[in-house]
């Protein structure tokens, strides 16, 4: 009997040894830098040159939302490079952990559209800290079969339309949702909440929105699932969601609201003291390569930062995606997302209205 037990003990031990032996795979992964960014950007198709050169991908961790990402980096998270968006670069920089970028090591630096390189915050203390990669919009996607009347009067108003009470959804985010309430409440500057009266006005509008929406969520999946199942007729999304929904054959349209869609630009920053600096530059170069940029236009439906990629894509496709070859067209047409002033008060207000106050 005892020998039986010993045998099974030995088997358990062997299983453990095997499991621990698997750690060698993890050790190899440590040789690659860690990319900390928006979910979805771990697709190897975005970095073909990196995969070719190093025979594998770097490590990737997604943040829940960008503000959470800033906090995590602040508290010592060991990432090597990041994916900040224009309206948050200053906040990232204030953590003291962004390294200046050596543009001479970036092959396609000169191919990046000049207007993107000049975006507020991209250059800090005279040195660039951010490489523009892609740009897109935040707007409303709606089901043309369920809310056909909006086809002639596209507007953010659909989120507040009583007819669709409980049938709309929005981002769980200040920059992608709450500021829209500010815009619709008619405060003087939708990016400035330092005046309590503006916060109060926005709060009234947000309270209405809380009564309207089925849920707030930052997950493209949750938002898309709800649109796809007909649970909601309209939701705030980024371009990539619309591209995917259309590919699944759903009758949806991305709004160009009369008040303007919001636009943003995102890019790469390097964390100070990275132990994998060479590979980080390899990754940046891989992402700026033509092949990668074209893939992103096709798959995500985003605009990209290099002109050569645009020139290589069929112009019919571009117009179908609602993209223009000239980024200035879009950057100037919509509402350019900026740094929010008085963010703390706005977040507090958002939490309160969500709690029903």
């Amino acid at each position: 009997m005892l020998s039986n037990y010993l045998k099974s003990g030995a088997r358990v031990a062997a299983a453990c040894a095997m499991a621990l032996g698997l750690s060698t795979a993890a050790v190899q992964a440590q040789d690659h830098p860690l990319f900390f960014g928006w979910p979805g950007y771990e697709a190897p198709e975005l970095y073909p040159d990196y995969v070719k050169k190093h025979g594998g991908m770097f490590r990737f961790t997604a943040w829940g939302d960008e503000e959470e990402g800033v906090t995590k980096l602040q508290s010592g998270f060991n990432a090597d490079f990041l994916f900040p968006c224009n309206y948050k670069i200053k906040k990232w920089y204030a953590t003291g952990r962004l390294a200046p970028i050596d543009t001479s090591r970036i092959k396609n630096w000169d191919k990046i559209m000049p207007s993107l390189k000049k975006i507020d915050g991209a250059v800090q203390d005279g040195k660039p800290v951010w490489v523009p990669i892609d740009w897109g919009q935040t707007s409303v996607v709606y089901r043309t079969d369920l809310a056909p009347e909006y086809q002639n009067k596209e507007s953010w108003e659909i989120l507040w339309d009583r007819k669709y009470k409980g049938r709309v959804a929005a981002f769980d985010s200040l920059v992608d949702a709450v500021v829209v309430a500010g815009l619709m409440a008619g405060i003087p500057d939708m990016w400035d909440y330092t005046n309590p009266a503006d916060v109060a006005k926005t709060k009234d509008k947000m309270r209405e929105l809380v009564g309207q929406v089925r849920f707030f969520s930052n997950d493209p999946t949750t938002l898309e699932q709800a649109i796809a199942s007909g649970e909601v007729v309209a939701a705030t999304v980024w371009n990539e969601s619309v591209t995917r929904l259309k590919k699944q054959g759903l009758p949806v349209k991305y709004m160009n609201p009369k008040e303007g869609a919001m636009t943003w630009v995102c890019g790469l920053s390097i964390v100070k003291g990275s132990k994998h600096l060479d590979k980080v530059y390899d990754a940046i170069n891989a992402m700026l390569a033509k092949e990668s940029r074209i893939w992103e236009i096709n798959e995500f439906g985003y605009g990209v930062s290099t002109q050569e990629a645009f020139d290589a894509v069929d112009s019919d496709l571009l117009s179908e995606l609602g993209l223009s070859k000239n980024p200035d067209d879009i950057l100037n047409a919509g509402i350019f997302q900026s740094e929010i002033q008085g963010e703390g008060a706005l977040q507090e207000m958002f939490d309160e209205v969500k709690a029903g106050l």
Partner: protein
Amino acid sequence: MNVRVSRAKMGWLGLYAATYLTFIYLPVLLLPVFSFNDAIYVAFPIKGFTLKWWEEMVAHEGMLQSLRNSLKVGVAVSIISTVFGVLAAKAFTRYRMPGSRALTGFFSIPLVIPLIILGIALLTVLTTVGVSLSLYTIMLGHVVICVPFAMFIMISRLEGFDQSVEEAAQDLGETPWMTFWRVTFPLALPGIMASMLLTFTISFDEFLLAFFLAGDQLTLPIYIWGQLRFPKKLPSVLALGSAILLATTILVTVAMMFVRRKGD
């Protein structure tokens, strides 16, 4: 008369039990259904049959890596917490010790502490001390919540058995270590197995704590949490969930058959 009442009661209760099983199985069984559905959006009506999500799952390096991480953490946690649990249980059942009530009370706190509080408390300490987050920090958190489970299982197992066996072995000149190894251990083995199984399960599916304590190496639940954000990945995550369910069902069935045959 009495018998009939009992039969009727049995009928109602049996019906209730069946309903209850439906309640706990319904959501779980939907996962495999949609892992074969030919659409990225998980919604009714069902579109068509496909195996591509299962193929994607098998080829998905990140997912498999996190599965390996979870297995590693789970195995380590189950061994460590069971060893700790066995030692503590032995102390409580074998010796009279002052303050044992206070100690059992203290040891059961992890059973009932809201995990988010334990998670942020550990995170605060680890970042203050300068320990970087990794699989080891997750293991630490999991061992804390698993030790009481292991200990209580072992107490209930060890409570029953006769100490004179151990004493006899020692009288026969066995060293305490050999006594433990040759007498106590075999008697405690079913408990040890139960404890390892339970603690492994807890660790394998734990999200709330791991979310705060994970570095760049993710365990499966955290990985799934991330994947739930990517619409295209969702169906292959469902495939993975179904695969795990299938694997455990097979494993448990085989184990049961094995145990039963031994019992006969």
